[in-house]
């Protein structure tokens, strides 16, 4: 099939054995690639009951068929496995340059199994593939490691590096995987899975082509899409201010959580932490993923002060919230410093920052004291204390060891009162979009496959009015603070949005295009007879597959809920007084999705979607 290299590398780290496999064409047609194909591989070949940090949990790196083509926004790839943070399906996606380079090396994906007896890294140079000793690299942070490996392997071409830092080595449950310093597979702790296998890095260089099925039509479509995605307002906004452009508007619409989700509005915070502030004070230049006309990435530098930071990758919106508004820190330089340390150590800035916010509230309420924190002052906004705590978390020292488990497990250790301070769903800390401002997002958090997530669907763009896809059945506009009609909206958001992680396409670029254009990208690249209806069917099938995997890993209806903090009305801000109607949302969604009382997809729904094997496993 065009678009694919039709080769997946399987690496058994326990016995240093490698071989090439592929998935059937029919699975490519039904699940496309990325995390969709990864989920199908997991279902077919691995045990859902596996311990996430055991040798039997795979780490699956997977491109999509568009990865490495020159269509806009197609540099992404997915990394999947069972999550050590949540105990259910884990996945993260990432832009940057690694995915395309892997495709240029002739590989669609890599499945890592087992555990190496000693630290290793995988080197791929086209058909020369070998596991190499990483003993001297173990302990290096991601920035130092990336530079080292690029120098070692970069004689004729700049290699791309996937790596873990000390947090992954130390099995921090929200450890991230780093891609060339500036891009991360952040969520669900895939970095800990990689660390549990003593796999320090993957270095790749490739020179092969990615074939497309209809070259002339593809070229014409590409030209059109690049123009559209470059000129769209949201693209201009991200280009000039990064994803942090969302902070100022979000503060006005009730999107931004403040002080561990307790406050509704703080205009001074957004003025100091938002996109314009970063652009004016610290931005040195933009940076783009491969083949991206938007260039939303920030390169920043803090020249002086207690949070002086050398030039490097800057924080996204989520990080500006978790280390800014969520912990009442008004100093963007402090956010940049925290971002740098999370990058170096390799930690998800959402889970890490949210867990620290939980700790700060626990500190305020006396549930944690200075004795527990080895003297660290966790008063709201104290960034010096936060940076000290980051080191402890990454190294699993003292209170850091407790917090490295994530907020759900940390709260369990502190008791019932502490559990009410956490804001997570299924163990994954909520990202920085408040369901009290946007009820559909609340439903999306409850039903997202990996836990509270703003990216496994299109809710962020659609419900906030950034984009819409009328040809797929969406309304032109949605009102945020109502639960009416949101079940239907979220199902559509998932059915159209999940394929983005299968295609491995950037959501920001997808926001600027039409749904029909997205389907055309697949058709003209792969040659599949692929239309919008196929895209939606793929999304529905992928949702059911991943939900079924989650059921087998232990998810049931009782886990589809929102935390108490989200169901507590705010007293101020645009979302004051508003909370999602959880009962209505779930009742309507379960009906539309065809879920039974236990939260499993009904047998007939699975069979209709072509998931007979999953139906058998779930229902017998």
């Amino acid at each position: 099939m065009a678009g694919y290299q039709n080769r997946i590398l399987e690496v058994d780290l326990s016995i240093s054995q490698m071989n090439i496999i592929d998935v059937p064409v029919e699975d490519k047609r039904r699940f496309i690639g990325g995390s969709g194909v990864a989920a199908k591989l997991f279902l077919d070949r691995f045990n859902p009951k596996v311990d996430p940090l055991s040798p039997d949990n795979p780490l699956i790196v997977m491109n999509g068929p568009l990865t490495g083509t020159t269509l806009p926004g197609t540099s992404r790839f997915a990394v999947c496995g069972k999550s050590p943070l949540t105990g259910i399906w884990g996945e993260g996606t990432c832009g940057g340059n690694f995915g395309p380079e892997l495709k240029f090396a002739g590989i669609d994906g890599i499945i890592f199994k087992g555990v190496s007896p000693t630290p290793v890294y995988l080197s791929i140079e086209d058909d020369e593939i070998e596991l190499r000793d990483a003993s001297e690299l173990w302990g290096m942070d991601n920035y130092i490691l990336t530079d080292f490996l690029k120098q070692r392997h970069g004689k004729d071409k700049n290699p791309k590096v996937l790596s873990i830092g000390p947090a992954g080595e130390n099995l921090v449950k929200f450890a991230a995987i780093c891609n060339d310093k500036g891009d991360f597979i952040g969520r669900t702790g895939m970095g800990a899975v990689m660390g549990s296998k003593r796999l320090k890095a993957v270095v790749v260089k490739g020179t092969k082509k990615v074939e497309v099925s209809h070259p002339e039509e593809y070229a014409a479509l590409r030209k059109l899409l690049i123009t559209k995605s470059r000129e769209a307002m949201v693209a201009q906004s991200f280009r000039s201010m990064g994803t942090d452009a969302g902070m100022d508007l979000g503060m006005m619409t009730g999107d931004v959580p403040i002080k561990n989700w307790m406050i509704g509005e703080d205009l001074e915070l957004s003025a100091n932490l938002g996109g314009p502030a970063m652009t004016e004070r610290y931005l040195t230049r933009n940076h783009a993923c491969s083949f991206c006309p938007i260039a939303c990435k920030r390169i920043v530098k803090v020249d002086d002060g207690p949070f002086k930071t050398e030039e490097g990758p800057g924080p996204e919106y989520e990080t500006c919230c978790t280390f800014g508004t969520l912990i009442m820190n008004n100093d963007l330089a402090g956010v940049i410093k925290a971002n740098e340390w999370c990058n170096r150590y390799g930690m998800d800035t959402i889970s890490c920052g949210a867990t620290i916010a939980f700790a700060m509230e626990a500190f305020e309420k006396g549930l944690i004291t200075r004795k527990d924190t080895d003297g660290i002052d966790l008063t709201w906004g104290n960034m010096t204390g936060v940076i000290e705590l980051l080191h402890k978390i990454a190294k699993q020292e003292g209170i850091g060891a407790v917090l490295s488990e994530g907020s759900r497990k940390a709260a369990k250790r502190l008791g019932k009162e502490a559990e009410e301070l956490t804001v997570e769903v299924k163990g994954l800390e909520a990202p920085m979009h408040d369901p009290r401002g946007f009820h559909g997002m609340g439903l999306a958090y409850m039903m997202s496959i990996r836990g509270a997530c703003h990216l496994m669907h299109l809710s962020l763009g659609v419900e906030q009015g950034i984009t819409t896809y009328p040809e797929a059945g969406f309304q032109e506009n949605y009102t945020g603070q109502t639960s009416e009609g949101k079940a239907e909206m979220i199902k559509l958001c998932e059915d159209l949005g999940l394929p983005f992680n299968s295609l491995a396409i950037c959501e920001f670029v997808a926001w600027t295009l039409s749904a029909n254009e997205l389907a055309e990208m697949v058709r003209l690249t792969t040659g599949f007879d692929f239309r919008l209806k196929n895209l939606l069917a793929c999304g529905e099938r992928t949702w059911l597959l991943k939900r079924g995997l989650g059921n087998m890993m232990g998810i049931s209806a009782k886990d589809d809920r929102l935390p108490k903090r989200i169901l507590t009305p705010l007293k101020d801000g645009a979302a004051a007084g508003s909370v999602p109607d959880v009962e209505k949302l779930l009742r309507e969604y379960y009906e539309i999705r065809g879920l039974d009382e236990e939260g499993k997809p009904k047998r007939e729904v699975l069979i209709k979607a072509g998931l007979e094997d999953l139906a058998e496993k779930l229902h017998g």
Partner: protein
Amino acid sequence: MALSFPSIEWVEEFKRQINSSEGYKKAGATWTAGVVALVTSAKPEIGIKEDVGIWLDLHQGVCRDAKIVTAEDAQKAPFCITGDYARWKQVIKKELEPVKGMMQGKLKLKGDLPTIVRYVKASQELVECTTRIDTKFLDE
């Protein structure tokens, strides 16, 4: 008596509403980035024979001047937002939030984005001012 949108009378009333608004005075207090112009695209079937510009000389929470201008003159302003008649009607009726409208491509912005983003609250207050005008829409 209802005032036709767009018209000189409507624009003069808009200026009066802006300068009566405590909300805008506060939200726009630090605005020194210059004139904001709004352009409605021509719609001959309802009597708008060519594009119409509304010139708002806003400065530190005050509207110093408001007038009807040509679209060509409107484009000379540091900030110029262009839209169809139907879109402006949606904005005035609070059916379309202007920043959302820009994101969705329903309104086109010319001007420095970071500056506009800093004044989202001020833009909301300007829309509030339009809702206080008894407006007659030419297509109704």
